[in-house]
């Protein structure tokens, strides 16, 4: 699920809850349209309680679309469970990973 407070940087997407087979289709759409709109994107995972292969697949697809355009997609505040799944998928070295939003936004500039 996607949760974007109005007062937030437009190129930050905050996911929340379980990113599983039920919710991945919605997350995929939000990520792809945000990448197309914003270029480089930061995906904040602090409120993600669970992520599975379908959730990881959304992130990978959005990353590929971003990079094909010369942009990038960074992950922010990755939970323990999500980090373990990224490591299992050997994707922890593929995505730029930032401890928090400040780190992400300053790395960008």
């Amino acid at each position, binding site marked *: 699920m996607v949760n974007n407070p109005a007062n937030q940087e437009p190129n930050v997407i905050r996911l929340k809850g*379980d990113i*599983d*087979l*039920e919710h991945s289709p919605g997350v995929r759409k939000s990520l792809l349209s945000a990448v197309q709109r914003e270029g480089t994107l930061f995906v904040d995972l602090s409120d993600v309680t*669970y992520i*599975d*292969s*379908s959730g*990881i*697949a*959304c992130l*990978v*697809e959005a990353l*590929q679309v971003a990079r094909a355009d010369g942009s990038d997609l960074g992950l922010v505040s990755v939970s*323990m*469970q999500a980090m*373990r*799944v990224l490591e*299992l*998928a*050997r*994707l922890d070295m*593929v995505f730029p990973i930032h401890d928090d939003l400040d780190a992400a936004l300053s790395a960008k500039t």
Partner: protein
Amino acid sequence: MSDAPAMGTCDEGLEMLFEARFPARADRLKLVRGSMWAAARMCGFSDSMAQNIVLAVDEACQNIIVHGYKGREKGEILLSVLRTSEALHVRLRDFAPIVDPKSIRPRALDDVKPGKLGSYFIREIMDSADYQPSPDGTGNLLEMIKRMEGAPW
């Protein structure tokens, strides 16, 4: 679910922790994840290993929903969670067309693409995941086994 009484232990020294039956739909998987985590913890697995086991079982259910029943609404999944003194056994029974195990190919490691992660996670996390003959020859019975930490082999 039959009304037959008597159980708790069953074949081959396996003790039944619980069984669940649910429609093969994406919105039911969250109902099973909590029970699966608690069952893994009950077997002595660490919190993070229990979360990995939940992931493996969830991925196997997803494959049944997406590839087995292909979204057909009437499909159902039976999950049986059992243990011996040495291992957790998770069995998934479905009534979808019979799967050719050779058709399940996890992705290559260095291949960054969106799909084919599910069967890869299952193999990485569990000690084994094999199709067994189903009781009546219809559908599939996938058995996944995870040895307990500190078990002798």
